[in-house]
């Protein structure tokens, strides 16, 4: 684990030094929220759970959760998801954390 932490720290320093955007270098998701109607998630790893009240998306190492009502997946591509509906909350989960 410590090796991975060191690797990440190095990467961060590298990207800071060369002014490379973090999401490219560190494999982080880019999430765009439009009001409470739409969420775009770029750079995802697949859907973990999908119901009309709750959507969980695998992102980097952890998960990204959306709760709301009447949720629907507007479109899904290999690296992009768009979720529509009435969004109530967003939440980042550590790997293994139960929501």
């Amino acid at each position: 684990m410590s090796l991975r932490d060191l690797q990440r720290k190095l990467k961060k320093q590298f990207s800071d030094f060369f002014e490379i955007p973090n999401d490219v270098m560190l494999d982080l998701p880019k999430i765009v929220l439009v009001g409470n109607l739409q969420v775009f998630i770029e750079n995802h790893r697949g859907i973990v759970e999908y119901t009309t009240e709750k959507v969980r998306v695998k992102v980097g190492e952890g998960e990204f959760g959306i709760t709301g009502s009447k949720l629907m997946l507007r479109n899904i591509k290999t690296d992009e998801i768009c979720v529509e509906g009435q969004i109530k909350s967003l939440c980042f989960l550590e790997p293994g954390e139960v929501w």
Partner: protein
Amino acid sequence: MVLLRLFSFLMGHVSLVVRGEFLEKFVNMAASRGIYLWDITRLGNDRMRVKVRISDVRPLRHIARTTKSCFKVVERRGLPFMLNRMKKRKLLAVGGVVFLLTLYFLSSFVWFIQVTGNERLSSEEIKKIAAGAGLKPGAAKWDLDAKLVENTLREKISSVAWVGVYVKGTRVTIEIAERKLVQEDPHRNDPAHIVAGKAGLIKEVLVLNGQAVIKEGDTVLPGSILISGEIKEEIKPEPANQPLPEGQEPPEPQYVSRFVRAKGIVRARVWYEGYGECRISETLEKLSGRQKTSARIKIGTKEIIIAGPKESPYRHYQEKQTVKSLPKWRNISIPVEVRNVQYMEIIKERMTYGQAGAKKIAEQKAMQEVSAKLPQGEKITEQRLEQVNTAAEEELVRIKAFVETVEDIGTIKPLKAAEEDKD
């Protein structure tokens, strides 16, 4: 976004209901294989609805098998499906194509010609000349040469200064600018008298040219000469050296007439008279604004009321009928007509003006009558109102109005016409 939607319409897409245990896995696998899914909605615990392109349905079947789910097509959308449907109704498609072709074909002709800007020239004349140059209803647009039409019109009609021919769809507008021809009055300098246009009492005479026949204080009648265009000059005989012999009268003075166009201002007092009357009390009829319409169909002699009242709902009313009947053909007329009857309520009102009120109204009426006779812009120098009393007692007030003005009463009358009148 619109482009994307158009693309998906052209390619065609279907809605699937997927049933299975691991629907998230199904979606993930599809996404990772590059199958584009959209509008994914959860229908129940183990069912969801997914939209997908036609071409992606086949690989999706494989994914369904591996995730132990199955799907059913519930909706088909897009051009490929429409074409399929069209194949069953070939004639409809043919009709549509024929319609479009006909529309296109007919729209390449000129159907309407409009002429604007012409004041003295008639539109018919212009259209006739334009038809000679190839512009007439039914002419093909590809044969039409707007420049040629313009030039032809300009050459053939001399009073046209500029012509523009615009083609807009099936309508052609010919815009014309006419040359303004200044017409000189050929009789402008012909000798003329100034005669009285109205009867009056002469107040001032100002002669600019000609010989005054009247003087101030004269009364003239319409038509009488005020300033003559004929100037008579006496020819004085050469002063004789020797005194005239005894017994011989000096010769009659001889006149030579010179004709000019009389010019001058003759102002005269002119009187006008007007009359007005008003009853002391009278009944007025006024529309109340309330109305009812009834629609009827008349077949032969029978009348069927469709809507509205059968008879007038008002005690006093005006009736207005509009009848629509079928057009006659030869001698056969169909005895069916639709008639609309409009009942408009009338209110009868009894107005009492009283002696003074009636007098006032009568005065107003009399003055109105006078001012209608007055020429525009003339000032009233004196006015007098007079009540006409009859022997019998009446419910009527009669008023006479007299108005006096001072105005130029001279009108020009050509001398030649005057001479011709005598003949």
